[in-house]
Each structure stands twice: as C-alpha cells, then as structure tokens.
C-alpha cells in the first residue's frame, strides 16, 4: 500500500494522474466546459505540488533544474527506479 506520508513524490503523482485522466476525457470531449474547468483547477494544484516537491527533493524535469540550484542537480539526485526514490 502506498503511503503518501512516506513518499513526498506521491502528491505530485496524484495530481499528475488526475490531469492525465482529465486530458484523455477531454481528447474525446474537447468542448466540455465543466471538464475544462476541472482540468484548470487540478493543473494549479499539480503545479503547486511539483514546485514544493522540487524545492525539497530536486528537479523532476530538466527545465526546472536551471532554477534555484547551485549545480546541475538533474544528475545528482536518485533516478526513479532506485529504491531511495520510492
């Protein structure tokens, strides 16, 4: 069982998954205003969760590696399949 208190990345994964599911729904329903509004709301939560995670644990994407770190942190933190990252 995944415990989100044990794993800070889970907050990011949660909102990313919500965005993905909404994205897939919108692909076949591009005019659904309610879903579009939901996507926007979740996107803000996702961005917030990603920013908090990256400030604490390191970059998730190369483009955020250039901001707020002293070195190219992209290759310093564990890769996702290492046990330390999970």
């Amino acid at each position: 069982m995944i415990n989100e208190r044990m794993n800070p990345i889970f907050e990011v994964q949660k909102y990313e998954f919500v965005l993905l599911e909404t994205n897939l729904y919108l692909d076949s329903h591009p005019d659904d205003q309610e879903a579009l509004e939901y996507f926007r709301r979740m996107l803000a939560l996702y961005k917030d969760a990603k920013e908090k995670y990256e400030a604490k644990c390191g970059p998730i994407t190369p483009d955020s590696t250039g901001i707020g770190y002293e070195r190219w942190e992209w290759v310093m933190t564990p890769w996702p399949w290492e046990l330390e990252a999970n």
Partner: protein
Amino acid sequence: MWMYEKKLQYPVKIKNSDPSAAKIIITQLGGPDGEMGAATRYLNQRYTMPDRRIIGMLTDIGTEELGHEEMIASIVYQLTRNLSEAQIKNSGFDTYFVDHTTGIYPQAASGVPFSAAALEVKGDVFADINEDLAAEQKARVTYDNILRLTDDPDVRDAIKFLREREIVHYQRFAEALGMAQDDFPDKKNFYAFNPSFDKCMKK
C-alpha cells in the same frame, strides 16, 4: 514518466513528394541503425548504469531520439503525400505501399521490419557505452549515405540536422566512457573493465 511536446525538434517542410526517397529514409526509423533502435537501446541501458551522470545522459539522449523518430516519420509522411499510381509503380515504393499504403511502419530500407536484434543491452558500463559510440557512428554513416542519395534541399536540411546530432551524441558518450574509466573505484581503469561493478551478485 514522459510528457509529449506538440512540436518537432527541428522543422520538416518538404514541398515535393518523392516516394523513392521515402523508401530509403524509412530505414532511419526502423532500420538496424535507426532512431527507434537508438531510443530503445539508451532508455533500456539506463537502469544498471553505475553513475547517475551517465544515466542522465542516456535519459536525455534517449528522449531526444524519440523526437528523432517523429522527425523521420514526418519526412516520410511528407514525401508520400498525394502520390499518383504511376509514381508508386515507377519509384519502387510499390513494395512498401502494398503492405502499408502510406502508413508509417518501422522497417529497414530493405523491407526487414524493426528488430531489437540490431541493438544491445549488456548490463555493463563499458560494453554498453562502446555499443552506443558505435551506434552513433553507424547512424551518422547512414545519414551520410542518405545525403549521397538525395538532392532535394528540403529533405537534406532536416537530414543534415539529424546527422549533426549523431556527432554530438558520439562526443557525449565518449565523455561517459572517460568518466567510467577515470572515476570508478580503481582509478584510471585503463583496460576498461571493472569487476567491482558486479557487487550485486550474491554467491
């Protein structure tokens, strides 16, 4: 995890169709030294690499190769638009057309479908990085050969860009090999092997 960006890495805008060019260029999607093999090779070699910097390199180059698959597919798509029956029959494209119409299918110029047998994942940093160095050179030669066989400046422009990327990747992998030889437990690993990497093996 991967996210898609809705754009090509470098523009592909080919005005004139040319099915015989398409038939040879498809080899850089699904041929023995094509982009699909490159992406698959690098992204799968990452897991057992003993250095996070080399993992970063394989991740970033492997990801770029996925973008190159899209560029090759775009070139082939644009070269096979609005074909006439005569063009299909006279260009030699008919042998591709009969099986795939103008769909994008990963195969070699010879018609052999994409095969993972053309790539290697050995689970050893020296074997794998040497494989990658050779792969970049082989892909570069294939692009050189495509340039020898095509005149259309629109096609050549995109192919030249892809060729240059092979050269850059070769340089980066050469650095990775240097890192692996210099930085690991027994310093200056001149003979390029290191049994201490096998510490995960239990007797």
